[in-house]
């Protein structure tokens, strides 16, 4: 029993590590954490992992040929757990987003190493987060589905 607990505790840090900026394998952790089903497809300059969440929201994670996730998008009725999928970039995003305003339907955080943009309204949210310095040549973020 104790041994089992220890094994789970050791696994947790791995499972909790999220995808943006992490190796592709972390997508599996995101899928497990978000209880989503994952579909993988190879494109010319990246590999696309689609995580369909049970709530209806679709999370897409894009990994470059070096195996690092460089962009994530989300579309659907609910905002996904961004702490999970932004991983070590989540705190920087939250810190940058802190400013009081009355417009609750638009967000843009642009830093040299991290961009987060979101748009939408209740029951329909869209957003993306990416690492500008990690985008493969020839890929335009605006064209990522």
């Amino acid at each position: 029993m104790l041994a089992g607990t220890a094994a789970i505790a050791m696994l947790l840090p791995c499972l909790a590590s999220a995808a943006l900026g992490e190796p592709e394998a972390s997508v599996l952790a995101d899928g497990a954490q978000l209880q989503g089903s994952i579909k993988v497809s190879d494109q010319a300059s990246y590999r696309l992992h689609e995580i369909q969440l049970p709530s209806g929201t679709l999370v897409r994670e894009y990994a470059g040929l070096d195996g690092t996730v460089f962009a994530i998008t989300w579309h659907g009725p609910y905002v996904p757990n961004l702490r999970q999928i932004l991983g070590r970039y989540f705190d920087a995003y939250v810190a940058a987003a802190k400013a009081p305003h009355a417009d609750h339907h638009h967000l843009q955080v642009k830093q040299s190493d991290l961009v987060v943009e979101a748009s939408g309204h209740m029951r329909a949210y869209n957003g993306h987060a990416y690492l500008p310095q990690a985008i493969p040549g020839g890929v335009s973020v605006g064209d990522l589905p």
Partner: protein
Amino acid sequence: MRPALLQALRNGCMLVICLSAISCGGGSSLSGVSAPVIPPSSNVVDVVVGGGPNGNSVNSLYTTVTVCVPGSTTLCQTIDNILVDTGSYGLRLLVSPLTLSLPVLAAADGNALVECTIFVDGYSWGPVAAMDIHITGESASSVPVQLIGDTRFPTVPSDCSSTGGTAENTVATFGANGVLGIGVFLQDCPDCSASVIPAFYYSCTSTACTNTMVALASQVQNPVPFFVTDNNGTIITLPAVVPGGAASVTGSLIFGIDTESNNQSGSQTVLTVPTSGANAGGVTTIFNGQTLSASFIDSGSNALYFNDSSITPCASSQFAGFYCPVITSTFGATIQGANAISVPVTFSVGDAETLSQSFTAFPGLAGTTTVAGSFDWGLPFFYNHRVATAIEGFTTSAGTGPYIAF
């Protein structure tokens, strides 16, 4: 400069609020703009573009509501600076201006029903309470309303805050005393009545909260269908505003569509909206040859947000993310409904850096977004327009909701 702006600059970010630097609220009423006169009527309430409770809002539309303990005509309170938002569903009040004692609704297990409301830029946390709502001559009985920032439930669950952005649980961080969500839908989470949706509704004791399902009737919901009459939708009408902006703007929120002489559909074009899917409640925009299928018309957004790399972006970091063309330029686009009906529209984009700091209404305020397929028709779209929002399942002379017409 304001602390919020300084904070934003320190973080090297750009945010909508960076615009707070150009607006100090208030201003002279002489330069205010008023809508064409609509006779006072029991279904019309003033809506005002102004600086809001913090004095720094831009293109933010506010109104006043009166709420009462259910069944009471004396235990009531009138609250101003309530955002008028066609992009959400239900009334949400910040508790700090609220002096009424309102009982919290029970979750299915008997504990308190508490909600995590996720906006695009952050989240608000607080319990659900029933109250009567009075706006102008319209009354709604025992409507579930969210009380944001209620100290009886001080701990935000981690999966709620994990949706990101800012905790918006105070008037200072919310930018309003509340929000009146009067979009096309009835409830804020119909899926929550059939399954447990993460980071939405919770059953809470004083010390712990767990995600829960909620019956539709207990969900925070659009108060308009609760009105006895004039309950099938709303019309927002705002006057034209000169390109340089205005210190404030006064218009009307009219309840009902084709229920009174002042809310006739006339020749308005009906654009139906999807009831589900990735763009529920939204429209499609055709702009610059692109078909943008994640577009929406939203009184709660303070600018038009879209992507056009040919428009000069602002150079100064405090206006990063906004457009700053040398001369105000006019553009054309087409907005299309789910019914394949489309309407051509024009809009202007001005230089955000030259806007007067004492003004709060800017028709040419536009910003960038590169979110795929997105065109956010925020409040500037509503100037010089009469925008009708028909609620799902309700019929007007022009059609059946959910639809938007203008």
